[in-house]
């Protein structure tokens, strides 16, 4: 399959960013960039004139899906373990099909005899995608307190269940880990009305915790930074654990910043509830059959510095970037629409994805 030259360069650019230097690693950035690219694909999409006039709406949609699928496979090849790409591509395909189905329905029921132009189909799909991109935006201003949403600010469907006040009580001690913008937003909202304090493990050797502590304290939230090793020792003082994640797998397991498993299992040991804040696009339709398969090993220099380089020839140094957190360690997921138990995720996924036809890095044709 051929792409237009401008699309090809856009795709190549994104692939390079994901693959070669991992310039973008955050779930939000990857999702936003991938969606941007797919919207461009749809916008640029044209069928040959003689053929295009003859196509029905769903035939047209299927041809579009083929194109998206081709782009998606190129993206998967860049980083096969990146679940966000899989989520976005499948979600977009699902949206195209849903919209075309809806159009068909309207066509026969409401206005029989009126033909829907394929150009309109593109427009409608693009509108849907535009709404989807709002999931990746988190506004930084603090003025929008009253909409009640603790999650992505612009998302209209904010519900009672994602209200931070429902999760954080006054003077509680919360433990978190990593540096999740979603969690930060969640805390900032809660701090509007209630004083509470946060314990943050530093998240060595990546030190996400340092950044998180800084930004929370800048917003006046009481923060204590502790070494990762003190997580267990302090867990008995904690009321709740609220963490972010990179992705959520179909069984409810997390692919989260390294160190999250320690926090979650220590919480489980102390019977402390673990709340995971994740937007809908992070929920992946993929099941983990091997828990290490979605991890990445990064440079060991942050745990074995150069001056100890003489050891390097004698030992293996493993420095995983993510952690696998089993679903049994998690009590509830909070997204824009509210809270869900891990066991419910499979049902949630059916609304976002065509779960029978998932394309991923492994199973494409």
């Amino acid at each position, binding site marked *: 399959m051929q792409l237009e030259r401008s699309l090809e360069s856009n795709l190549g650019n994104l692939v390079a960013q994901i693959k070669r*230097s*991992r*310039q973008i690693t955050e779930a939000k950035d990857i999702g936003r960039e991938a969606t941007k690219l797919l919207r461009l694909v749809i916008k640029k999409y044209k069928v040959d004139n003689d053929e295009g006039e003859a196509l029905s709406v769903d035939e047209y949609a299927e041809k579009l899906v083929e194109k998206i699928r081709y782009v998606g496979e190129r993206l998967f090849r860049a980083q096969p373990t990146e679940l966000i790409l899989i989520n976005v591509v499948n979600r977009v395909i699902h949206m195209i099909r849903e919209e075309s189905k809806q159009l068909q329905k309207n066509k026969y029921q409401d206005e029989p005899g009126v033909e829907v132009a394929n150009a309109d189909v593109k427009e409608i799909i693009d509108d849907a995608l535009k709404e989807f991109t709002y999931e990746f935006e988190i506004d930084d201003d603090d003025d929008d307190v009253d909409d009640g949403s603790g999650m992505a600010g612009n998302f209209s469907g904010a519900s009672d269940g994602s209200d931070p006040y429902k999760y954080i009580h*006054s*003077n509680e*001690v919360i433990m978190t880990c990593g540096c999740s913008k979603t969690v930060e937003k969640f805390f900032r909202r809660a701090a509007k009305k209630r*004083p*509470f*304090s946060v314990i943050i493990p*530093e998240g*060595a*050797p*990546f030190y996400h915790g*340092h*950044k998180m*502590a*800084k930004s929370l*304290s*800048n917003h*006046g939230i*009481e923060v*204590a*930074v502790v*070494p*990762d*090793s*003190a*997580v*267990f*020792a*302090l867990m*008995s*003082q904690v009321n709740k654990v609220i963490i972010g994640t990179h992705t959520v797998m179909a069984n409810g397991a997390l692919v989260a910043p*390294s*160190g999250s*498993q*320690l926090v979650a*299992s*220590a919480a489980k*040991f102390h019977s402390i509830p673990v709340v995971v804040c994740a937007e809908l696009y992070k929920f992946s339709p993929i099941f983990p059959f091997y*828990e290490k398969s979605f991890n990445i090993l990064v*440079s060991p220099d*942050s*745990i074995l*510095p*150069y*001056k*100890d380089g003489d*050891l390097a*020839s*004698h*030992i*293996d*140094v*493993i*420095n*995983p970037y993510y*952690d*696998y*957190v089993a679903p049994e360690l998690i009590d509830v997921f909070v997204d824009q629409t509210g809270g869900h138990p891990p066991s419910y995720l499979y049902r949630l996924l059916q609304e976002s994805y065509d779960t029978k036809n998932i394309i991923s890095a492994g199973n494409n044709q």
Partner: protein
Amino acid sequence: MPNNSSTPAADNKAPKETLATPANDEVKETRAKSELTEKELKALAKAERARQFKEKFAKEGGPPPAKFQKKKLTKQERRELQAANEQAKSAASNNKSQQQDNASNSANQQQQQDPLPKSSAAAAAAATAVAGQPTNRMPGNTTASVSATSINKRGPAIIPTQPDKRLSIFKHLNEPRFPVSSLFENTTHPDGSNAPITASTDVATSNSNALLIDTSGKALKPTHPSDGVLASAQAVAQGLQPGSNLLSSIDRSMQQLELSTSTSGRHHHLNVEDSQTAPSSGASTPGKPTTTATTAAADPALMTAFIDPTTSAPNEIPVHPSVITTGLKIAAGNIVSSDARTIAMLQSLIDAITDYHVPPQQIINRHLIKYIQVQTKYLEQQRPLTVGMNNAMRWLSEKVSKIEVTLDEKEAKLEMVQNIRDYIKERITAPRDLIVEYGLKKIQDGDVILTYGGSSTVKHLLIAAHKSKANLGGKRVRFRVIVVDSRPHWEGREFVRSLIEAGFTKQTTKEAGLDVDTNDDEDIDFVEPPISTTFNNNSNKSEDQDSSSSSSSVGSSGGCTGITYISINALGYVMRDVSKVLLGAEAFFANGTLLGKAGTALVALSAQTYRVPVIAVCPTHKFTSTIRLDSVVDNELGNPDQLVWTPGYSDNIPSEQTGTTRQLNPTSSLSSSGGIVEGVNFEGNKKWAYHSMDYSPFASDRYSSQPHTNNSSGAISLDNNSNTTNENISKKSVNSKSAPSVSLKNSSRNNHPLAKWREAGPLKLLNLVQDLTPAKLISVIITDVGLIPTTSIPVVVREYSI
């Protein structure tokens, strides 16, 4: 006579060689780490000579040299000095007689006998060395850094700023394990909100006050808080005189040491706060670096202050210099493991008891207890005593109280010394050998053993397992080791290093005879490890293709087939492959909880999640009949600044870097060092390059984004002119013998998220040192009385009357 030809004689360590060798090894091991000992000993000898020199003048009644003229000695003082000298001489001759088999030493002994002071810097140098830093590392203000250097690595961050505040703050210092639970108690804030405060709030406020203190070199005013530094330097210098009655009052010196502790915290704090300050772990004084170490030492006034005898009160009990040395080493983190600390304490007490004399009209068993208590109190102030140390102390005071009054002093002392040696042998070193013996049976072929931190007992066990041929019909068992490490001390690196030094190597699966996956027919001559598939999975994949190779080398190879090193965050990644977890312990409480380095509980918990047996190793001398429920009530707090981190900064930059002199005028240092040659000082270059990295895990990010520097080529400025272009950038010259300079843009310190954390709103750092592992997470404890479950600890404590 050259100054440095003196010997360890003045250290009064003479009786040491009769000790059990493992104990000696332990201490040597810890000392070798710091190479300070040698210098310290020399310095001690120097101090001794300086003292004798001074005393000679006193005896002859001649005019003392200019530097001593400030205080004239009264008759009584002279008498005291004389007495002290005799004591010292007798001690020295005692040493001599015991060391006569050591021919090389005895020659030096002779030299040591005649006092020939070479320079007035001697005593100051001694004080420096005791404080844990050799002279050449001492920049700036000597008196301040003498005490500052010692505590910095582990020193508490509580800083008294005004004399009237001292009491309340010292209360904390006197109970260094102050409860952490208070950190999270809710207090009402002025704004009406209920927010928890943590200890670091207090730290922050007191520190911000501390910032106001002028730290310029000579500003040691009498009422100034840094007065304590001078006084403590005095105490240290005086402490160098073994057995003398000239030492200042113990209460006073205690106070002074507290002050010096806190002052060191101040210095450390200043290093963090001052954007202009060159990176250092506290050795470089952030004052005006106008006075160098030598000039400060040569200052007559300071010199007098160091060894001024008038400050001493004869009736007080002194802290023995050997105890001071040990205490400072413990405080500086040179002696870390709990066994090593116990042994070091006991050996310094042997020295102290050897030099002990019963004062007139005192009974030995009454007074010796007081004497020992003073020594212990000093050690406790440096760092809280471990359970093992407390047990040893309790045992010792019981022994002392039972000294028969009929024994004369010499006999009693000999008996006590012998008792302590027996304790070290019977309770510490011999049990460790037993534990190794029991533990060997638990290491089977194919095991993947995970261990955490730097326990010395685990190290001995692993090394023994590596060398042992007993378990597999004359063949060595094959096992892999996973070393888990954690911030902020990264003790596992030293652990890994010592394993490698013991001969642990990375073997391919073929060499190890473990390629069972690929060709079973040729490999059937050993028991297939239970987790062989995962084992191979983690091993070198490229070796799997060599299926045709024979395993004839199995007999000669074996032992440890590889070491994997991870940070504690990666526990979940490796735990599935682990077959046994070995944990060292600092103590076991009667309810079965394990007191260990912070993070031990997480390792045990992770092991339980993956159904991996957790084996703790702990000699019974570290058992206690007390009970602890959680890690928060009673814990040791580390220095919070250890958490302020720039990669390669706080824990990766070696201590050499701390001794660098800060130059006010970088241009002069550049010209004096002959300018900067590109590529010279490659060693330093690397370190600083590492230091300048952003904390992104991906190397490319680090190199592409250099937000910390104005220079796009990187953080290392090899450009001579850069200092003129940007005056705000603090400059640092690394002075080395080859005299190259690397000028560093130190602004990265401020860009760190936690830089200036004390000013950054409601932000606290809490550095817990220990944690408690619940009994149910531990499968078995290997002790010297056998393998026991955690429930048996009270029984063992009772039966063995620990």
